[in-house]
């Protein structure tokens, strides 16, 4: 789309755990405003890929570039600065248990971005309202439902003004009736132009909004392309097999 290069680019990421090769030289790139969706069976390496991108897991081989600049994970300060620009949403939410919803959103602002308390609070309130949780600001994680927790974690990530958001199966740990509220927040982000990579099982959702669907299996990308193609008339046998199993017979919840 844009003339300038991709916002985020990963080249040849490989990771091995003991005898198992979890990632085999995976490369991908995202342009500004893209929504790329990773699909594939469990153990395909989707989660590991996302965690390698922000170095929560250190890849054995490969490089990551943000706005064209390579990120060297050995440089502590650089790494922290990089992570501020790449937001991550976890399957298990990982909210800070000792802080209220507001506190969770504020802490990145005050303790990482060194904002002043007043400004941080204002911003935090704004982000919570953006995800629809304004009245729950004073509640602790123990008092929130799964869907609410995940929305707080999205607000927390957004407060950092990230360039890219990585979402690692954001709705997989949620009861079905709570999935919708999280998906609608993600939809809003897409319409606002946020650059995102999402690993998910929510295929219907992916089909609606994604620029590109990437099918992974066994640590490698099998096929990638526009949703219309991948979901219905993929080139690869394996892709077709996987997609046919997940798009019928129940269809996917919106």
């Amino acid at each position, binding site marked *: 789309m844009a003339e300038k290069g991709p916002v985020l680019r990963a080249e040849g990421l490989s990771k091995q755990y003991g005898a198992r090769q979890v990632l085999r030289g995976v490369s991908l790139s995202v342009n500004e405003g893209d929504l790329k969706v990773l699909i594939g069976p469990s153990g395909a390496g989707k989660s590991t890929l996302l965690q390698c991108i922000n170095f929560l897991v250190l890849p054995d081989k490969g490089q990551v570039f943000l706005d064209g600049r390579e990120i060297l994970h050995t440089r502590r300060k650089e790494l922290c600065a990089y*992570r501020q620009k790449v937001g991550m949403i976890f399957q298990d939410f990982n909210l800070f*248990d*000792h802080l209220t919803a507001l506190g969770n959103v504020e802490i*990145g602002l005050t*303790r990482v971005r060194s904002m002043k308390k007043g400004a941080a609070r204002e911003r935090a309130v704004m982000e919570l309202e953006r995800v629809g949780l304004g009245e729950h600001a004073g509640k602790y994680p123990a008092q929130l439902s799964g869907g609410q927790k995940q929305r707080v974690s999205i607000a927390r990530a957004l407060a950092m003004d990230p360039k890219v958001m990585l979402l690692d199966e954001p709705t997989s740990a949620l009861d079905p009736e709570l999935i919708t509220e999280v998906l609608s927040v993600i939809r809003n982000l897409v319409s606002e132009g946020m650059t995102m990579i999402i690993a998910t099982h929510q295929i219907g959702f992916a089909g609606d909004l994604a620029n590109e669907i990437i099918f992974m299996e066994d640590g490698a990308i099998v096929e990638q392309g526009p949703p219309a193609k991948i979901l219905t008339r993929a080139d690869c046998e394996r892709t077709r097999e996987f997609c046919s199993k997940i798009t019928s017979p129940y269809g996917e919840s919106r």
Partner: protein
Amino acid sequence: MEEIFFIQEVVPALLRGLLVSIQLIIPSAVAGLVIGIGVGGLRVYGQRWVAGLADGYVAIFRGFPLVVQLFIWYFGLPHIGIYLTPFMASVIGFSLCSGAYHSEYVRGAFLSIRRGQFHAAQALGFSRFGMIRSIVLPQALRLALPGCGNEIIYLIKYSSLAYMITCIELTGEGKIIASNTFKYMEIFLIIGAAYLILTSVAGSLLHRLEKRLRLPGFEHYSR
């Protein structure tokens, strides 16, 4: 006649003893807590060999009776040339012993913190120091408080053992007076009451502190 004797001789002596007791308890409590936090941290986050050493320290200082430890510091050290006063030996003994117990609670607290929070903190760009300061410590403090608080209450009680290595604190003064006057019941009931007051006040302070720091989601950790 007896009452006057009592007030003139006994009370000052007991107060003297009480002062020594307090002088024993406070430094030992602080040192023990600091040691416990350090050792607990090393046992959970330190490298293998460091954690192993720390585990060894804890095993010995929790395994040997405190009396034995005190005797080693006071009677044993002179044989390798180190001469400690009864007071010093007591404070060192109490600090190292209670430090081992504190480290158990601190270790348990660190281990209870759900790991995912570390990932989230890293993902937000927290440095390691920032993470410890803002995420680990606030939670660890609340989780370790009941255990460490109780250990300090135990310390108040076993400070009386300083008598056994000739450090004359409250119990020691009482024993001296009682041996001279044979009024064991009266003296030791008073001393018992003094300790009861100390432990009860400490217990109530601990309870109030726990209440103030309580957060939803952390209740089930308080024992």
